[in-house]
């Protein structure tokens, strides 16, 4: 590795973010195993480099749309892990007031307009957000992250076509972990995949190693500039989901040894090795890891000890006109 131009402080920060995501996911899985998280969670362990490499390049007022596997994206966009964990547990103080849970994590305060429980549904919403940015003449972009399964849904065609037709500032990111829920995506996908499909609609598109945080960082920075100058672009990041579809999915459908083999490409370990080779001391790396674990343990404890919202809150924030708490006339 050429360490001469290596931005040590930037990637030390990236490593810190990746460790925070991993520890958040571990704490969430623990909370799920203890029945503190009641609904399903979709951990992103193994996909941290894609999340950090993309989202660390977004400004606070750039917009992010994410997926059901969105904890990493949301944290990297700047959301408070306390509010996120409270939401996973359905507690007071959660980002979504206990109404959404893991699959609907959102933090509008940092431009994160929501995870989505429907695969591919965020694509149309993202192009609409970009349409609004264009109408208002603002200088920001929308990053829309979806999985490989989403390219087989209609919004992938409709949304990418739309973004190109109106030349909207959207960076589409296909985070390809190889699995559509529990089925190998290659078994259910015709043709050349996300890049070929995007190119057929006139978008520039490219594939990168999604487990190489530096590579993702460099290409994202460049693509954001190009999105601002010339419209939508698709970035296809290959990665691997080191766990199951949900935290309780043993993923027995995977070929024996596949996941074990993939641990050798673990993006967190790869980043650590790279930093180590660049001269970051073992002490500093260990300190980052310990701080991340400690932070997320505190977050876990806070959420565990928090209270559920009162039942009456179920009637709030439905709608103004026709509000269920009052008669119309």
């Amino acid at each position, binding site marked *: 590795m050429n360490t001469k131009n290596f931005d040590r402080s930037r990637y030390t920060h990236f490593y810190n973010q990746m460790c925070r995501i991993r520890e958040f996911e571990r704490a969430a899985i623990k909370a799920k195993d203890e029945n503190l998280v009641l609904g399903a969670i979709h951990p992103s362990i193994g996909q941290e480099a894609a999340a950090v490499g993309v989202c660390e390049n977004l400004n606070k007022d750039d917009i992010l749309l994410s997926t059901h596997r969105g904890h990493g994206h949301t944290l990297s966009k700047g959301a408070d892990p306390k509010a996120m964990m409270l939401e996973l547990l359905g507690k007071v103080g959660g980002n979504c007031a206990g109404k959404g849970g893991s699959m609907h994590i*959102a933090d509008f305060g940092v431009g994160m307009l929501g995870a989505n429980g429907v695969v591919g549904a965020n694509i149309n919403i993202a192009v609409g957000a970009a349409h609004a940015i264009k109408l208002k003449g603002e200088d920001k972009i929308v990053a829309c992250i979806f999985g490989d399964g989403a390219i087989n849904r209609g919004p992938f065609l409709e949304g990418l076509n739309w973004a190109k037709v109106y030349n909207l500032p959207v960076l589409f990111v296909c985070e390809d972990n190889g699995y559509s829920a529990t089925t190998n995506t290659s078994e259910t996908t015709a043709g050349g995949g996300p890049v070929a499909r995007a190119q057929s609609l006139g978008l520039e598109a490219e594939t990168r190693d999604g487990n190489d945080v530096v590579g993702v960082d460099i290409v994202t920075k460049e693509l954001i500039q190009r999105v601002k100058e010339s419209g939508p672009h698709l970035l296809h990041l290959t990665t691997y989901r080191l766990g199951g579809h949900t935290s309780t999915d043993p993923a027995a459908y995977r070929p024996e040894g596949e996941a074990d083999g993939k641990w050798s490409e673990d993006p967190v370990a790869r980043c650590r090795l790279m930093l180590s080779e660049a001269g970051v001391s073992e002490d500093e790396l260990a300190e980052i890891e310990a701080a991340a674990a400690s932070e997320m343990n505190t977050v876990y404890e806070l959420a565990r000890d928090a209270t559920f919202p009162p039942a009456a809150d179920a009637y709030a*924030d439905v709608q103004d006109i026709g509000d269920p708490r009052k008669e*119309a*006339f």
Partner: protein
Amino acid sequence: MKTMSYLEAGREGLAEMMREDTSVWALGEDLGRGGVFGQYHGLQDEFGKDRIADTPISESCILGSAVGAAMMGTRPVVEMRFADFALCAVDELVNQAAKARYMFGGQARVPMVVREPSGMWRSSAAQHSQSLEAWYTHIPGLVVVMPSTPADNKTLLMESIRCDDPVVYLEHKDLWALEGPVDDDVAALPIGKARVARSGSDITLVSWSAMFHQAMQAAETLAEKNVNAEVIDLRTLWPWDKQCVFESVRKTGHLMVIHEAVQVSGFGAEITSTVTENVFRDLKSAPQRLAAPRIPISYAPTMENEVRITADQIVEAALKQTGK
């Protein structure tokens, strides 16, 4: 005060809102050429292609992108061309638009209007004729508006655009050419307020959209037979003006709900049940529904007419119900 058509009134309402508020814009297929019925005629000349946007035939993206644009603080008016085609965007309306505010704990507002030309006109068959309003009333988060007159089509469209909730706005295709008086300076009409269009003491006829006009015609005939029907134009189905209906039923003791949609699980069921639960003691007869049989809409007029409710049918049913 001037006379204009239901279609022109809607167009004027949208144009006035676009002049008043630069965050209002419209998107849909063929809008630059005026829209499929001419509801947008001339608007692209005034407001440009960005604010009267021609879209691809991508219903899911038309509606879904409006959700994103609404969450970003603009006020999109979505044209779905035919109510039937909005079914290509059910996820975007039901799972996204209707849920975003709630699901995100109040962080989002989705101020959008989904215009869906609805109902039967001649020989358009099963995919261009449906009245699906009851579906939308079932979805928490949505407001459902169905204007029946030019004046209401202007005022209610303007109020729907001002509203911070997603509004399903169902205009009836058979009413486009209907002319009526529209005030130059439209006083705001709150969404959810019904109108007692004709006062009477013998039976309450509740309806909305095109069927309201059949109810009014029936009331004329009934008057000749010494039955004074009170006719209520509900105007909006969610929220619906329960108090207005209760008050009328307390007076007349007889309730009939007339709608163009299929009777089974139609909104008439909601109204008759709610009235029965709340003003049972004032009822002199079981509340009745007059609505379409549960069959798809045909092309040939002989068969198509089987799903039409006529003023004559309303008269006959009202005489039977009141025992006159």
